């Protein structure tokens, strides 16, 4: 126990050690996170009127980001399945970074839900009257926190074992949890999709296709983010990132994105060919309603970006460079963020169930809160990677010295 506390203290101190690029990156993120905190404090004082949300569009940027980030958490499982189920050696080396990402992203998800609450000080009511199993939101509370705990356990156990130079007991403490995490990862997407698709009063969400599309786009955006992250890790740390892992992820993204586009086409066909009157939300999203067309440029840029990304992915990757893959990944992250974020949440409220058309535009304060959470999540992830790399490599173990300790020895 004492050793574990010492480990935590050393990890904490290690997170303050790095070169100038590390300090700059961390400083910038900290500043943005503090700006976000500042904006959130303003929101706490004045209420959610500081956001662009109204009774007509009662969910906005926060829930949109929450939804998108739940998808991002899929990154972990798309590394885990090939690594543990198909025993792919290349992925074994990097799977932990996917799990760490899941931890950081789920924390971001929970933050996005918290900032959306009108009375956050009452969150304790969740423990006192939990409307389970009726409310899908309670399911979401369970699956998201469960996923967070499982991934915290897997990563924490692996890292601490390496720190103590002990061979992890895979059969008992690792593999069962990894297998549970795979199923659990599917569940967080399914439950979050059901959150929306279960509402009969919102025809835009009330489709069976929401959950499959949700998973398909998640399995494209998550691995796309991981592809970029792994390259950053490979470049700025001493950790070895096999190129084959990236190539395998490319296959995953291609399949997931193709399915996503296919489902999108099926959805569009059904809605527009039928021409039914009550599908005004879809019409609003793609073509606008009268002079109300705030989301039209957004969604068409998403359609363009996603299609181009898919074409880029399908192009034969002749040279050894990864720029094609990287461009496609950046495009997918952005494109799916629009499509699965604002593009999924906001149109469901426009028009309202009574046919009123009120548009939604996030306020600066709202955007700052959102940016703050993103910066905080990246900050967390950077620290986790910063600690994990030397520990797994054996540079920081129970009987080695900490870089700050080395520095102190040198000056003493």
């Amino acid at each position, binding site marked *: 126990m004492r050793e574990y506390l010492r480990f935590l203290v050393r990890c904490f101190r290690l997170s303050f050690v790095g070169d100038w690029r590390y300090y700059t990156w961390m400083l910038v993120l*900290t*500043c943005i996170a*503090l*700006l976000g*905190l*500042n904006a959130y*404090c*303003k929101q*706490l*004082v*004045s*209420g*959610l*009127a500081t956001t662009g*949300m109204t*009774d*007509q569009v*009662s*969910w906005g940027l926060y829930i949109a980001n929450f939804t998108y980030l739940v998808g991002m958490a899929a990154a972990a499982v798309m590394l885990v399945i090939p690594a543990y189920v198909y025993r792919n050696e290349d992925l074994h080396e990097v799977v932990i970074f996917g799990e760490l990402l899941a931890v950081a992203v789920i924390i971001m998800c929970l933050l996005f*839900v918290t900032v*959306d*609450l*009108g*009375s*956050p*000080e*009452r*969150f*304790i*009511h*969740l423990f*006192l*009257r*939990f*409307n389970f199993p*009726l*409310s*899908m*939101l*309670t399911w979401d*509370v369970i699956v998201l926190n469960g996923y967070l705990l499982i991934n915290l356990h897997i990563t924490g156990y692996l890292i601490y074992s390496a720190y103590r130079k002990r061979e992890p007991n895979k059969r008992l403490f690792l593999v069962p949890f990894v297998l549970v995490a795979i199923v659990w990862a599917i569940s967080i997407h399914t439950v979050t999709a059901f959150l929306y698709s*279960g*509402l*009969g*009063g*919102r025809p835009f969400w009330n489709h069976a296709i929401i959950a499959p599309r949700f998973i398909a786009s998640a399995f494209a955006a998550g691995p796309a983010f991981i592809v970029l992250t792994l390259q950053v890790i490979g470049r700025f740390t001493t950790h070895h990132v096999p190129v084959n892992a990236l190539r395998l992820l490319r296959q995953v993204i291609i399949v997931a994105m193709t399915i996503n586009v296919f489902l999108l086409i099926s959805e569009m066909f059904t809605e527009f060919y039928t021409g039914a*009157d*009550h599908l*005004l939300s879809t019409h609003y999203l793609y073509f606008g309603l009268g002079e109300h067309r705030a989301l039209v440029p957004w969604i068409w840029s998403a359609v363009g970006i996603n299609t181009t990304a898919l074409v880029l992915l399908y192009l034969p990757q002749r040279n050894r460079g990864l720029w094609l893959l990287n461009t496609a990944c950046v495009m997918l992250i952005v494109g799916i963020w629009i499509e699965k974020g604002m593009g999924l949440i906001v149109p469901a*409220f426009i*028009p*309202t*169930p*009574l*046919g*009123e058309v009120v548009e939604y535009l996030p306020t600066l304060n709202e955007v700052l809160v959102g940016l703050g959470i993103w910066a905080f999540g990246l900050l967390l992830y950077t620290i986790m990677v910063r600690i994990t790399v030397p520990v797994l490599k054996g540079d920081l173990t129970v009987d080695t010295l900490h870089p700050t300790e080395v520095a*102190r*020895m040198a*000056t*003493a």
Partner: protein
Amino acid sequence: MQLPVIGNRDGCASPYGGASRPGMTRRSFLRRGAAVTGGLAALAAAMSPLRDLDGDDLPSFQKLLQKHYKEMSPEEMEAALDRIRKEVEKRYQVRPDIRDFKPMDGVEFVYALNLTRCIGCRRCVYACVEENNQSRDPEIQYIRVLEMPRGSIDIEDGDHHYERSTVPDEHHYYMPVQCHQCANPPCVKVCPVEATWQEADGITVIDYDWCIGCRYCEAACPYWARRFNFTKPKLPKDDLNPTMAYLSNRPREKGVVEKCHFCLHRTRQGKLPACLEVCPTGARKFGNVLDPKSEVAEILRTKRVFVLKAEVGTLPRFFYYFDERDPIDEHVVPSQAAQAVGVAS
């Protein structure tokens, strides 16, 4: 003569020995101290808006520890009502008459609205606001009146913001919408903390002290009946209605959801809802559907009654009806929908 510089850039230990510890130079100590101070200062600056928090807005311990409505004993309810009395008195300088009215046995409330009679004057909207202590700024209204073109029953054709010097307009009819007090309420199903539920007399209520403000119920309602307090409600003290109940019209605070509750502080005492009392045309009918002799029971038996969005399966307790055929008026221009199927104007 040359002297060594004290505390120079080489980081030699201070001759005064004050700040230095083994392994920590004066410079690194100062730098670290500056970083920690700077960090804390930045954090404090970031959180400085919290200074503007109004002391009265902060929840008291008593309120934070208050139990869910259904779990409160009569004594605990009395304590809660007493706390609310004090809070209202402090904020509005009015001693409220607040009670907790329970549903009456053998009663199921139902509303029936006669679309032939409604003239769209919106008196019900404002009577409701006055009765139920809604925020005046921003103004929260439970009732929305739609101006509907004749020939259409599709609420998406309705105009929410019609402005006329006189009503009714001969080419339109009017459809007020408020909480339908559904027998299968989606808002109750989705609430994660059971802050809203259906009572024995059919009224769906909200415990304003329990709602966490997630607005899932607002997303779930097919009738757009729920309202959220995006900011602290503003209600001039002269406008406060001092007759209130725990589950109905007591003043709300920011961050909670509210909606129509069939004026339960009136109706559970045998009175009629405020929107009905003010209606100049008698378009609104309210009563106990379990009583076969009640007017609403009679209407449900004999009139051409319908509910909004029957297809979503919410089973509303709010019925609309036309009590007679509209008089044939030569001057009325048929609606677009009617013209599309060939009705001559």
